[in-house]
C-alpha cells in the first residue's frame, strides 16, 4: 500500500513538468488557434539553458531559471513575429509544417551546441535531500516541483481571471474580430500569449532537468506526451491540461514500476479510450 502511495506521489511530481508544457500548448491553441509543434523544443531549450547557466557557469539557481525563461521568450517572439504571423491567413497545415521545421532545426542546433550526449545539472543544495513519506525517503526536489506546479496553476488562474491582460486575452480568444473592433491590439495579444506559452514550456524544462535529463530527443518526447494530455483533457482547456497531466504522470509512474516495457503504451491506451468515449476530451473547450 505504501508503495502505491509513494509511487503515486512520484507520479504527481512527474506530472508537474508535463502540466507546465501542456498549459503553454493549450493556451496558445486557445487564443491563436495554432498548434505549436516546436513547443517541446522550447521545453528542451529551457532545459539546456538551465543546465548551461546553473550547471556550467555556476549562476545562482533562481537566476539561471529566469535567464532560461528569457531565452525562450526571445525565441518565442522570433517564431511568432518573424514567421508564424505571416501564415495565420493560411490553412492550419502550413502553421503545423512551419513549427515542424522549427523542431528539426532546434533539435539539430542543440546537438551542434551541446553534443549528442545527455546532460544532468546538479540539484541545487537547498533543495537536495529527502524526507520520509510513506516510510520512504521522498526527494525534496520533487516536493518543490509539486509546489511550483500548483503555484503556476493558481498564478495562471489569477492572470486570466483577475488581470486586465487576462480579460483582453479571453476576449480575443472568444471573438477575434469583435476584440479588434473595440480597440484590442490583437497582434500584440497574440505575441504576448505566444511568449507566455514559450516561457511556461521553458520553465517546465528548466525545473524538470535535475530529475529528467537534458538530451537532444526530449523535445519530441515531451511534445508527444503534451499532445496525449491535451487530447485527454480537451484542447484549449487549462483544467483539462492539469487533469490530463496528472493522469499521464501518475500512470507512467506506476507503469515504470509494474510494467516497465509498456510504460509509454499506457498513455496511448488511455488516449484511445478517451477518443472512443469522449472524443472532445474530458474538459471540452467550447468556442
Amino acid at each position: 500500500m505504501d508503495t502505491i502511495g509513494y509511487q503515486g506521489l512520484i507520479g504527481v511530481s512527474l506530472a508537474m513538468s508535463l502540466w507546465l508544457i501542456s498549459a503553454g500548448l493549450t493556451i496558445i491553441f486557445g487564443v491563436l488557434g495554432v498548434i505549436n509543434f516546436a513547443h517541446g523544443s522550447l521545453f528542451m531549450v529551457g532545459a539546456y539553458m538551465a543546465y548551461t547557466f546553473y550547471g556550467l557557469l555556476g549562476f545562482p539557481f533562481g537566476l539561471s531559471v529566469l535567464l532560461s525563461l528569457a531565452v525562450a521568450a526571445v525565441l518565442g517572439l522570433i517564431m511568432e513575429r518573424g514567421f508564424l504571423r505571416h501564415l495565420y491567413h493560411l490553412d492550419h497545415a502550413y502553421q503545423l509544417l512551419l513549427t515542424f521545421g522549427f523542431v528539426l532545426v532546434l533539435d539539430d542546433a542543440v546537438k551542434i551546441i551541446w553534443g549528442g550526449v545527455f546532460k544532468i545539472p546538479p540539484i541545487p543544495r537547498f533543495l537536495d535531500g529527502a524526507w520520509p513519506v510513506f516510510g520512504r525517503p521522498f526527494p525534496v526536489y520533487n516536493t518543490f516541483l509539486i509546489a511550483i506546479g500548483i503555484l503556476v496553476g493558481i498564478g495562471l488562474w489569477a492572470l486570466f481571471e483577475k488581470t486586465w491582460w487576462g480579460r483582453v486575452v479571453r476576449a480575443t480568444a472568444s471573438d477575434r474580430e469583435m476584440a479588434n473592433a473595440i480597440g484590442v491590439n490583437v497582434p500584440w495579444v497574440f505575441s504576448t500569449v505566444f511568449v507566455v506559452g514559450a516561457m511556461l514550456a521553458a520553465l517546465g524544462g528548466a525545473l524538470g532537468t535535475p530529475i529528467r535529463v537534458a538530451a537532444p530527443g526530449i523535445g519530441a518526447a515531451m511534445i508527444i506526451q503534451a499532445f496525449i494530455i491535451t487530447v485527454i483533457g480537451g484542447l484549449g482547456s487549462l483544467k483539462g491540461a492539469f487533469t490530463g497531466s496528472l493522469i499521464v504522470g501518475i500512470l507512467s509512474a506506476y507503469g515504470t514500476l509494474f510494467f516497465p516495457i509498456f510504460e509509454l503504451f499506457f498513455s496511448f491506451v488511455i488516449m484511445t479510450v478517451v477518443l472512443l468515449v469522449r472524443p472532445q476530451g474530458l474538459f471540452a473547450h467550447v468556442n
Partner: protein
Amino acid sequence: MTYLRHAHIMSGPLTAALVAALIVLPLLAGNYLTYLTIQILILSLFALGFNLLFGYTGLLSFGQAGFYAVGAYICAKILLVQPSLLLGVLGGTVAAAVVAVLLGALSVRHTRIYFSMLTLAFGMMIYSVAWKWRDVTGGDDGLVGIPRAPLKILGIASISLSTIEHYYYFVLVVVLLGVFFMYRLVNSPFGLSLQAIRDGETRAPFVGMSVTTHRLLAFTIAGLYAGLAGALLPPLENTVTPVMAHWTTSADPILATLLGGIYVFSGPIVGGALFIIIKDLIVRVTVHWSIVLGTVVIILVMGFRGGVAGIVAGMVARPRAAPAPAVASK
C-alpha cells in the same frame, strides 16, 4: 475559399521518355546510382500515398512512418521464415493497411488539427512498440540478416533477385504500378470527391458524401502505400531498425511532397528525387542533415508553397489548368 485544380506537368511522351530512361539506367549507371534510384523510387511511392491524404484530402499526417515501419517489419518477419519476396511484400502491405484502418477510424473523425496531433502520437506509439518489444522486433538492434529472397511466381518460376540490378527492376515494376493506380485513383470520381471534401467540408455531406468514410478510405490507401514502400526496403538493406517508425522518418515524405509540389500529381515524385539527391550531397559534408531539412521546410512554407513542380506547372500552365495556387482552402 479557393477552388483548386491539380495541375499536370507530365505529358504522355515525357512520361514515356522517363520510364525508358529508368529502364536503361542500371545498364549505364554503377551500383551506387542504381541503389540511390531505388531509394528515390521507394520514397516517391511513400510520398505519393502521403499526398493523397495531404494534397488531395487536406489531412496532414505526421505519422506515416508508423505504417512504413509496419510494412517493413512484417515483410522482414515473413522473409526470415519464408524466403518468398512476393509473400513478404504483400504481407507487409496488407498489415500496414489493416493498422491504418484501425488507427484511421480513431483519427479521421476529428478536426484537421487534432488529426495531425493524433497521427503523430499513433506513429510514435508504433515506434515505441518497435523499440521496446525486443522479443519480436529485436528492440533497438532491429532485425538483421533479412534475405533478398527470390521472386517465386505461383510455384512455376523462381527468379533470383540477388544482384542489385535485378532487385531494381522488381522495385521499378512495383512503383510504376503504384503510380499508375494512384493516377487512376485521383482522377476517378472517388479522387474528385476527396478534393470536394477538402475544399468544402461542410458542403460535401449535402450532396450525399460521407466525409468520414472518404477520409478513412484515403487514410487506408495512404497507409497501404506507406506499407508497400516500407516493405520494399528490408530486401534492399537486409535490415530494419526502429528509426523507420520515428517521427523524423515521417518528415521524409512530407518534405519530398513540399519540395516537389502539393497540388501537382507528380509533385511527390519530383520531390522524392530532389530529396534523395540533396540528402546524398549534404550527408557527404555534415552529419547535421536535419538542420538543413528543417531550414528547407521553413523556407518552402514561408515562400514557396507550390514546390518545384508547382513553379514548373505555373510556367507551362495552359488556360485549362490553373497554376498551383499558394493558398489552400480555409
